[in-house]
């Protein structure tokens, strides 16, 4: 559980750093997630008050965007591209293999907290698909063997 004094101290710094920015809510949420790994629900009322918007508005924005997490992710995050160019190179097959090997469906985290499996729609690696992103690192020309190697490394 996040200690509330730490949270509010860090939030105050983030809010101060964004105070002169026009339309600062997304940059604030990105900064919060970069620090804490997710957007703690306790943070939303504080952000809302600072920006003079309702809590419902802050929640609405946060929940609209796929990037923002309500809960911490696993220690590793594997994002597999599901879009058409990767499909044309067998992306669906590779994704099914990854789901089976990890025993996870999309958006799920393994019980030991090691890995979260997320779908992603396009990394701009459409000429070297199927593509993936592991903890921010880009991977192209993915196949089943590479998936097994990745899982071996992170498990």
């Amino acid at each position, binding site marked *: 559980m996040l200690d509330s004094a730490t949270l509010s101290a860090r939030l105050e710094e983030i809010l101060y750093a964004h105070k002169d920015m*026009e*339309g600062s809510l997304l940059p604030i949420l990105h900064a919060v997630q970069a620090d804490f790994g997710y957007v703690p629900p306790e943070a939303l009322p504080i952000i809302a008050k600072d920006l003079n918007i309702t809590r419902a508005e802050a929640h609405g924005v946060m929940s609209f965007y796929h*990037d923002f997490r309500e809960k911490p992710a696993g220690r590793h995050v594997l994002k597999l591209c599901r879009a058409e*160019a990767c*499909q*044309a*190179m067998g992306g669906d097959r590779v994704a099914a293999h990854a789901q089976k090997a990890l025993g996870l469906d999309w958006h799920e985290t393994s019980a030991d907290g090691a890995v979260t499996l997320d779908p992603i*729609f396009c990394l701009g690696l459409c000429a*070297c698909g199927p593509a993936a992103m592991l903890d921010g690192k880009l991977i192209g020309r993915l196949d089943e063997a590479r998936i097994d190697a990745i899982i071996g490394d992170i498990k």
Partner: protein
Amino acid sequence: MKLYLPLDSAAVALGADEIAQAIHLHAKSKGIELELVRNGSRGMVFLEPMAEVETPAGRMAFGPLTLADVPALFGDLAAHPKALGLTDDLPWMRAQTRLTFARVGVIDPLSMADYRAQGGLTGLTRALAMAKAEIVAEVTNSGLRGRGGAGFPTGIKWKTVSDAQADRKYIVCNADEGDSATFADRMLMEGDPLTLIEGMIIAGLATGATKGFVYIRSEYPIAIDVMQKAVVLAQAEGVLGASVMGSGHAFDIEIRVGAGAYVCGEETSLLNSLEGKRGVVRAKPPLPALEGFMGKPTVVNNVISLASVPVIFEKGAEHYKNFGLGRSRGTIPLQIAGNVKFGGLYEIAFGLSLGEIVDTIAGGTASGRPVKAVQVGGPLGAYFPRALFDTPFGYEEFAGKEGLIGHAGLTVFDDTADMLSQARFAMEFCAIESCGKCTPCRIGAVRGTETIDRIAKGDAAAIPLLTDLCNTMKSGSLCALGGFTPYPVLSALTHFPDDFNAMKEAAE
């Protein structure tokens, strides 16, 4: 010794960072003085990671490299197992007309000296000596149309903003390149970010805007990093700031990062997102050109539209306009993707036939199987069968075949593709990414997925229902997400009817 190795995402995804590290280590162990420039990609993704060595004859290319190929880069170059010859002589490079991408892969993206040496800031210098109306007229005369997909004349948009009266105006660059098969924006931002900055400044001069935003999707970490550094560099060099190149005109740029919502590539949804709101589409009118960011007149242009502006001012509107066909003027960066032998970015004048692009430039499929379909224009673009391969690449030409060129991405599929599944995916994707504001998109996409599932189970009566639903979505949706999802669905149904009948026959 001077070496080039791309920092481009595709090169990095194929191992360029590891190769760079090995090059440094090898040079160090041999005591060789090394200058390794991390440049943009030349666009030959099939040859990445591709290194170039500077020689008296020109830059020699080597690729696709593996770690084992690194030591030989320091030996007899001609004997290197991955030697490709001079980069400029490669067939892929020679046949192109590189205007917007002229410097991508050539220069160090973050060197102002390199940028100036290759014609950078020439266009801006010329624009600084022109009146606002003259700048707008130059863009209008070039025939440049929105490269994001809508194809709206850029000059007309600029004129609307220029003529509007307001205390503040904005230039917003739409770098939310979410369409599968498109990566031109990413490559431009990673390989020649200063061109985009220069184009945005010219847009500012033309309209009286003093502030610009680049809204980049979060899926592009390298592009975000390069653009942020380029803005800092341009500010330090006096290109951005209170007095652009000492002219007295103010213009500054801020980089903003999206948060994984495809619909934010739609301009009004992007503006809401930039304002810190949910990325919900706005009804038009009012046009963003009159009431855009924070209700002020705003130019919203795609990366490639803005990045094509400097070369128009450098070489003149006439020069640019002389390329192309019909009402599609200038060049277009084709992004060749999916199941292809030669994938990558290929900038050429409008007018090539789809067949030339797929069979000749792309070299057919990577799998070696026959091409079944090509989706042109991303997830909202139509699937083209071989029968339509004579269609010339242009806005009106594709519209005439119930398709669109969109952002000029092409995804090639071989004969293992099931077009009913592709149609279903289009509806499913629309359901996931719908902003929820209008009913035809929000509900229609879900019902569309269900209806296609009925067809898959052999219910032929669901086919007219799907067609009807698509017509409702097409004419009733607020933006292109719901409005264009019928393109992939109906084109799959029209051109590949067998894929929609198979189950029915099995059931009978």
